[in-house]
């Protein structure tokens, strides 16, 4: 078996080691755990896509954005949804343009064909020009093709792959393992520089084994106290240290409850921003009650938590 060489992106100084990645990501505002950084390291060195899983708001999409910023590569994003197919993801023929050109060229064709002595010669001449309509100028590239054709490489984010259909997942396999796509009329298009690929999933449905096998798997759990504090500090720089640790402790306590939707990192960050806007310097029962809807997105959850705010606050302290 021949192993593909490490992607050119791997020679990027920021990717030299796991520690360099952690530092680099921190520089663009993403506080990564060791496992996240290792995943990025392996992805670029083994040239494999990364499948990122985790609950909503835990920083899956953000990881791809920050990796693109770190590597200085363009980010190409493909949002998946039910019914997404290759004509929207990979390429499409500009049907209207093809038709328009045939209409315009119709008379011209006639002129060219008049000299032909018989049908065979006419056909022969037509063959020479026929393929014109299925060539690059009539190709409408979509995100996947764009990512392959990016000369310096790109970061390709295939967001919420679990929302797409199984057929689309199967279609991705060629693209993900060999970084190439086959277009019947043109041939195989191979990536000049393989993109760094992130796929994200919320676990709406189980992904196929074939897809999982081709990817590195990264599960981002909800962070612990210290990691989350560092994330808040990085995202909301203006916040005081005491308030920061207090609010993170409250969120951590909240996550031990049996809620329908646990608050994730994005909610913590939003809450921190909200508290700053309210010029809060410490948490108290009323303040939490008024801003609870930033953290909890279901009425039932809010109702369940409200009577226990005092207990949660003291539990944290």
């Amino acid at each position, binding site marked *: 078996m021949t192993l593909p060489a490490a992607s050119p992106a791997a020679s990027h100084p920021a990717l030299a080691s*796991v520690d360099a990645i952690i530092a680099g990501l921190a520089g663009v505002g993403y506080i990564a755990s060791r496992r996240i950084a*290792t995943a990025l390291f392996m992805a670029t060195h*083994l040239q494999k896509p990364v499948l990122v899983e985790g609950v909503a708001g835990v920083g899956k999409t953000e990881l791809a954005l920050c990796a693109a910023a770190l590597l200085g590569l363009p980010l190409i994003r493909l949002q998946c949804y039910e019914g997404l197919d290759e004509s929207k993801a990979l390429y499409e023929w500009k049907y209207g343009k093809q*038709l328009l050109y045939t209409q315009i060229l119709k008379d011209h064709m006639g002129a060219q064909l008049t000299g032909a002595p018989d049908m065979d010669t006419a056909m022969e001449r037509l063959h020479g020009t026929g393929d014109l309509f299925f060539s690059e100028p009539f190709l409408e590239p979509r995100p996947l093709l764009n990512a392959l054709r990016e000369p310096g490489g790109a970061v390709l984010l295939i967001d919420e792959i679990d929302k797409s*259909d199984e057929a689309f997942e199967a279609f991705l396999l060629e693209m993900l393992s060999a970084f190439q796509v086959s277009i019947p009329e043109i041939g195989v298009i191979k990536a000049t520089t393989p993109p760094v690929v992130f796929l994200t999933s919320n676990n709406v449905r189980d992904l196929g084994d074939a897809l999982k*096998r081709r990817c590195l*798997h990264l*599960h981002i759990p909800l962070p612990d106290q210290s990691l989350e504090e560092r994330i808040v500090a990085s995202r909301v720089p203006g916040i005081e240290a005491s308030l920061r640790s207090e609010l993170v402790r409250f969120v951590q306590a909240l996550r031990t409850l*049996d809620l329908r939707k646990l608050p994730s990192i994005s909610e913590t960050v939003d809450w921190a921003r909200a508290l700053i806007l309210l010029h809060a310097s410490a948490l108290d029962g009323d303040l939490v009650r008024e801003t609870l809807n930033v953290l909890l997105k279901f009425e*039932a959850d809010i109702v369940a938590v409200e009577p226990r705010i005092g207990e949660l606050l003291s539990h944290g302290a």
Partner: protein
Amino acid sequence: MEPMQRALGDFLRALRANDVRVSPAEAIDAHRAAAEVGFSNRELLKDALCVTLAKSAEEVDRFDVCFDTFFARPATAGKPPPPPEDRLEAPDGAPRLAEQLLAGDQAALTEAMEAAAARVGAGDIRLTTQRNLLTRRMLDEMGLRDLESMIQALRAAGGPRDGALAEALSERRTALFAQGAAFMERQSQLYASETGRRMRDAILAQQRLTAVEPEDFKAMESLVRRMAKRLATRYARKRHKAHEGKLDVRKTIRRSMGHGGIPFDIVWKTETLHKPKIAVMCDVSRSVAAAAQFLLLFLYSLNEVVERLDAFAFSDRLVSVNDVLDAEKVDEAITLVLARVGFRPTDYGRSLADFMDAQGAKLDRRTTVIILGDGRSNFADPRLDLMRAISERARSVIWLNPEPETYWGQGDSKMDAYSRFCTVAKTCNTLSQLERIIEDVLRTYMSH
């Protein structure tokens, strides 16, 4: 590098045994990953292997445990031999094991144990019950027999120095037993855990629903979930097939009129998708009390899977339980439903009447009605007329009965009469039967 790669191979085998699936291609990836990061930094190796091999959150957990167990070599492994004054001199001609024991050389002992374990095939351990036998074989391989005959010979010799030596040896032999047992325990944790779990799942799937022990309920629950998920995937695939379209020539030509007959606008045929509707009635009365939990469990899982499900539970009256199934977690949902209508004497006639009141107007040729129950109506009017009406209006009626067919019609069972109006009436008292039947339902009665 060579021994480390063999260790990695063993580790992959341990992962497979711990239910982390590792295909040959992933094994190659693992070796590449290890070559990339090297073996010296254990945390880095762990993370690198984890992202390559574990493919779900559960697998990540299992991977972490397995990695730590596998690479936790006994603390004795790297220990330097004790200072000379603590060593006891072995007599000439003593077996190697005795020498090592007397010298207290733990590192050498651990090494010898690992080698002996490899020779007796400790890594092939499949069942935890094999532990004792394998421990014994491993110790024999290390030369336990020679050691024992040596101890006996020393005792027989009777000299004070011989006696002390025999005591020391026998004491250390006991310690060696404990060490060997602990070693094999770890092996069985690494390599035998999955087989046991698989066997338990297989047995549970065949177990009669009425005879499941309470402590197996959790395992059963996860089994039901997996079944429901499997069904969901297949069901989704079916649905998708209906989406595919072909060129709608008539509409395309019609639209091209505006462009002088040039078809700028192409129209594809789309099949309108009739999503199937399912109405389920679940008997939770006293006579099916034991099976009711599982019937409800399945109803709950089905509700998560199927988009349009009308769920009802009944014993003497019938109530809709959709709200409970949607809002609550599985345990509470089951408890709540049972509290609402459970464990009362059944009245099928009235329940069917309630069902017609609630659902009658909605029954049509796209609806599949599933009834889970034993058909025992306590000699009340079975209202066969209502059953006939349901079977005439619905696309199909499926009745799953926990009792075997020979009991149908015996005593107060009206099952033989009801079954005449059913498209399918089957016995279903194990999980695997339940799965097979529900799958048949999804396949036969729902694909359009």
